[in-house]
């Protein structure tokens, strides 16, 4: 049975109404166009058009506070960046957050998944504990964690005091404030990682482990030779989306520290938001956004290569 004979039959069924036949049983190209059109239109209007406007604006001297009309400025906005200390700080923080929280949430997520994979009687409570952090809006999480780390009224210092350690003023120190932010992000992101990994763990057939048992392979070896390789594709895709989200980090530091102390914990997304919505320097804000796109694109390209590499390996 080939597709073409099927198609002929279907065509015969609607032969009396040729227009309808063409609509209801189009050839592959027409069908592809019809199927992809809604997605293409949405992406076109909501992403491609605004992004092209953004790129155009990044070449303009367009600051609404100057009272001057927009003026073509070439690369002036981009040339301004190397001299802007906040730009470097925000970029560095963004990269650092990505480098810390992506592996961090992967490791914590893996640990949570392994724990959650134990044979529990009350499975629903375990799943609820994994799903709640994921379903809690980022802005809420930022608000709550900001409160947790408050030096006087926060529960973190209270716990420290109770176990005999002195409390610290988290948001007084750039490093501690940064650590608190990373902890909050890892907490929020690890639950989804755990879910995905848990799902992956449960698809691995038990027979593989049984066979390994017969061969006398230890648990640790089983983990590295069966579990990890089989989970790799799952993990890579989860990492891509996690990395992209980490590069866009906004809500949690915005709610927890507002970038403080000083601008020590500001991220690139926060700085773009500030330049655009607060300083109204649309030209510079757009140029910063273009740089951020570039950063995201590099990471995506890297991962896409990894997927393709992984594809040929398996």
């Amino acid at each position, binding site marked *: 049975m080939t597709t073409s004979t099927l198609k002929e039959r279907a065509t015969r069924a609607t032969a009396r109404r040729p227009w309808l036949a063409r609509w209801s049983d189009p050839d592959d190209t027409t069908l592809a166009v019809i199927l992809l059109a809604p997605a293409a239109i949405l992406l076109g209007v909501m992403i491609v058009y605004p992004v092209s406007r953004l790129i155009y604006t990044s070449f303009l001297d367009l600051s609404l506070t100057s009272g001057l009309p927009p003026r073509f400025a070439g690369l002036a906005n981009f040339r301004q960046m190397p001299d802007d200390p906040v730009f470097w700080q925000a970029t560095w923080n963004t990269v650092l957050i990505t480098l810390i929280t992506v592996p961090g949430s992967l490791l914590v997520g893996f640990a949570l998944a392994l724990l959650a994979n134990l044979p529990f009687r009350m499975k629903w409570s375990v799943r609820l504990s994994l799903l709640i952090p994921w379903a809690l809006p980022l802005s809420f999480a930022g608000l709550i964690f900001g409160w947790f780390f408050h030096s006087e009224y926060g529960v973190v210092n209270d716990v420290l005091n109770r176990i005999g350690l002195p409390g610290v003023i988290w948001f007084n120190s750039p490093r501690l404030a940064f650590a608190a932010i990373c902890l909050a992000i890892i907490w929020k992101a690890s639950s989804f990682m755990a879910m995905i990994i848990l799902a992956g763990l449960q698809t691995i057939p038990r027979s593989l482990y049984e066979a390994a048992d017969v061969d006398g392979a230890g648990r640790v070896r089983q983990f590295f030779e069966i579990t990890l390789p089989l989970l790799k594709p799952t993990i890579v895709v989860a990492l891509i989306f996690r990395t992209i989200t980490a590069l866009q980090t906004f809500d949690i530091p915005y709610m927890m520290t507002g970038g403080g*102390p000083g601008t020590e914990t500001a991220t690139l997304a926060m700085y773009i938001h500030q330049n655009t919505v607060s300083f109204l320097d649309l030209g510079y804000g757009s140029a910063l956004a273009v740089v951020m796109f570039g950063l995201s694109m590099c990471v995506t390209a890297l991962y896409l290569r990894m997927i393709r590499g992984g594809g040929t390996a398996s």
Partner: protein
Amino acid sequence: MSVGRILGLTARLTAGLTGWLLGAAACTFATGASAETALKVFVTSQGQPAIWRTLLDQYEARNPGIKVNIELGGTTSDMQAQYLNTVLTAKDSSLDVLMLDVIRPAQFAAAGWTSPIATDMSAYLRAYAEANTVDGKVVALPAFADSMFLYYRKDLLDKYGLQPPKTWDELADAAKKVTDGEKNPNLQGLSFQGKAIEGAVCTFLVPYWSQGKVVTKDGKLDFDRDAATKSLALWKGFADSGVAKKNIAEVATDDTRKEFQGGNVLFAVNWAYAWAMSQGAESAVAGKVGVARLPAIKGGEQATCLGGWEWGVSAFSKHQDEAKKLVEYLSSPEVSKYIAINGSLLPTYGKLYKDGDVTKAVPWFADAQAIVETAKPRPVTPRYNEVSEAIRTTVNAVLAGATTPADGAAQIEARLKRIIR
């Protein structure tokens, strides 16, 4: 623009599809096509919207055919500005009248977002007449006045035979004497705003001004780095010596209010709103509070920071005349008196501070006029948001101990040089 139009059209089709999917559920905003003129007023949610609603009801009753709706915006001055900036950058016409923080009229006028109002400003307090006049044009009208005050515990000062301090050194001595004597580990000598919020700009400026220095002169930067260092060192010194608490970099305006109200603070730097609450039923200090002018740096003069809110007419409003008429009403002496009595908001007209009805309702307003009249405005520039950001993040960093006062002052200067040229 044709590409934009085509994209707009396709978007409209998609939107139509969505609308069809959603059926009648999608409540797309519809402009009522009645004979009535509907005005939309943007009010800050901490600006006591209920009082303004009462006044607007009266206005509607007196002006048939006019309907006024209140829109509540983001809650902090920053969040509101972000929201208004987004709306007005897109030249949106949905808002007609805007309530603006006193630091914004200059920026909004430069961006072309507010319409000039032809009116005589001489009856208002001079500071507000100036804050709302840009290049000789009136760009907004005052809503209510405000400034920073020194709140103090009258009962404790009396107990130790102390007078409200005239200088910050006196304040530190008094704080030490009282906190040593009280032996209450929860009692702080002084609370002020060290978090990177708008209030921290005033924190920096008050002692800076007190040394006779200005930030801008004739639109040019006139920054004194030594005075700035001294100002930052003063606040950091309070935190280091224990007059203020160690985590002062976490303290925002309402934290100061709550802690003072809870009886845990001797001296507090705060805006006028804290008064009514300190006399409320939940206050531990009702009847024990005094209000004075903020102290000076030794050898300098006492200075304070001007606050308050203004009414502007959106340049994109489709009802310019009606909006201007409404703004003139909202800024009138009649309204200013009403909100002073019913909302304890400081009047913008000098004569109202001596008005019998007002002083009967809020006795301390009689002493407030001299303070408000001498309050200084924060730098007036269209790029104020950047000035503010440069100052408050540095104040926060110095108080957190992440930067020294001298480095902080140098950073502020460097950043201001890039902003005000």
